[in-house]
């Protein structure tokens, strides 16, 4: 059994830390390149949301934060990672493949007949814990898992990765009542706070689909009994600082990390732009996206791709 748990970067020297961050940034960029090409080939997939979460997930899986064993995905001592924002599946699969849960070649047939990998995260995929795709399901499930961890005095942690748009679903707050009330300190929520839902922004008033306002989100979680940390979700420095002590927290509260991100991060035409939630670029847009991500030898010709909006 291989346990990938090399320890946190925060304990290393400055030079080692920078070297790790550079390596992880290159991984995150690789994830973005793969996601773009896979989505272009399949004419489907939530690209921009996969881009906002890239650094966070790379840090968790390749930065020694999550405890897991790719050869034994249901290893009982693993940390449970619940991808509540199921549309982010396309951005998690490359990381799972890179970690060794399944071969990268699975992407050749993404969403095709007989394929293992689809648009939303399915629980049959090695490394994916639960079915997701409908929003507001992850946190209630995570509280059930965390409660069993507490009852059975387990030292594994439960991570619940949430989109900020999905926080409109009331079920999250039903779960937050329970988590806060029980003081489930083995539960860590990470909110991909990219400020955009499907077609509207969460805290602006420019368009008819904007809002309702989510802020003050930190105070909401605090009021439900969470410890809250607000970070820049694209900064490895801040991600590691926020997660450095997760295994030795003494406060008897669940932890909510609000990670401020930008939807479509890394591709200038998509970044924080409306309509790119479920849109796959074509033509000049695709050329521009590839240029931003440094893709030189793409398989799929730009003219064969299809434009899809939400």
């Amino acid at each position, binding site marked *: 059994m291989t346990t990938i748990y090399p320890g946190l970067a925060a304990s290393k020297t400055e030079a080692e830390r920078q070297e790790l961050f550079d390596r992880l940034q290159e991984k995150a960029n690789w994830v973005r390149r793969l996601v773009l090409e896979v989505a272009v080939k399949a004419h489907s997939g939530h690209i921009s949301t996969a881009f906002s979460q890239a650094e966070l997930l790379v840090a968790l899986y390749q930065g020694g934060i999550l405890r897991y064993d790719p050869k034994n995905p249901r290893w009982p001592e693993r940390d449970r990672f619940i991808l509540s924002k199921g549309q982010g599946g396309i951005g998690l699969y490359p990381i799972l493949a890179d970690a060794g849960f399944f071969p990268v070649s699975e992407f050749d047939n993404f969403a095709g007949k007989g394929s293992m990998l689809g648009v939303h995260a399915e629980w049959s995929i090695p490394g994916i814990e*639960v079915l997701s795709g409908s929003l507001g*399901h992850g946190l209630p*499930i995570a509280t059930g898992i965390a*409660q*069993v*961890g507490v009852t059975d005095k387990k030292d594994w942690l439960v991570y619940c990765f949430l989109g900020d748009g999905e926080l409109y679903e009331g*079920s999250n707050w*039903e779960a937050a*009542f*329970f988590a806060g009330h029980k003081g489930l300190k083995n539960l860590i929520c990470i909110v991909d706070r990219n400020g955009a839902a499907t077609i509207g922004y969460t805290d602006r008033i420019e368009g008819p689909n904007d809002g309702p306002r989510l802020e003050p989100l930190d105070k909401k979680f605090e009021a439900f009994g969470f410890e809250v940390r607000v970070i820049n979700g694209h900064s490895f420095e801040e991600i590691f600082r926020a997660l450095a002590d997760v295994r030795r927290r003494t406060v008897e509260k669940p932890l909510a990390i609000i990670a401020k991100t930008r939807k479509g991060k890394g591709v200038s035409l998509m970044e924080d732009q409306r309509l790119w939630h479920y849109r796959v670029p074509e033509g000049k847009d695709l050329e521009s996206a590839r240029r931003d991500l440094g893709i030189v030898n793409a398989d799929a010709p730009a003219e064969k791709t299809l434009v899809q909006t939400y």
Partner: protein
Amino acid sequence: MTTKFILGMRDAFFDVLYEIFKKDKSAVLISADNGAPSLDKFWTDLPDQSFTVGIAEQQLIGMACGMAFEGRKVYTYAIAPFVTLRCYEQVKLDMCAMNLPIVNIGIGAGYAYDIMGPTHHTTEDISIMRALPNLVIHSPADATAAAALARIAHETASPQYIRFDRTGIPDVYAGRNVRFEDGVIVTKQGRDLYIVATGVMVHEALKAAKNLEALGINAGVLDLCRLKPINEELLLSHLQDVGRAVTLEEHRLPGGMGSAIAEIFVDGGLHTPLLRIGQGDRFIYDLGGRETIWELYGLDAASVTDKIVRWMGNK
């Protein structure tokens, strides 16, 4: 006046479940702020196996999923309309799509919450719950059946929904040797026709059968205590001996128990005349109690008797 009759079927179920919980430490109960006389001992004696989430049915099922995922056998408890419709998507995705061993216990099937109006009436749960793959649905007719179901539910690994009545209803199976795991029970043997019923309506069916007896019609009663999957083979083996079938449910007709049986008839090419009795396409605001609702909408034994007699005369 506290008797077994008044105590009711859910308490018979919980009493057996309590004994199961004492032996099986993987069993947990989650309540959405709902109590029962027989539940208090769970909270006092089994604190690691009893949880409450408040009035929050989505959390009830989602959390049950998380616990089942970690190897727990989970029982959730709320009133029937809320543990079905209020959290339907959680039941569909968190429970059924991942095929987890969770038993949803719903109290107050049909018009059990009679004077509480449409918010508390549960007359579409069979239609919507039977649409979900993997789900097993039980509907006991008395305390003896409920007690047996506690064991059956514990031994069944599938996601499950049990629709209980709320009030104490008479025991029809006490002292009888009944195989509840068969899912179909011959409550009363018949020769001319069978009334297929479930839950509290088994009792109205028995009364109607008695009325019919006086009119020279030998009617039997089949208790469909498992609504999904229906034991088609056993059900049809009884129905093939008689010329006619009637279904009786305290539930709306579209998609209900009668519909399920009609589907079996159609798919199997059966031409046995079938009369479905249940509630029409309406919400009920009428007050005065459950029996008043039954009388107004033709679900009481007298109305059922009349309907059957007229139907037989017309055919």
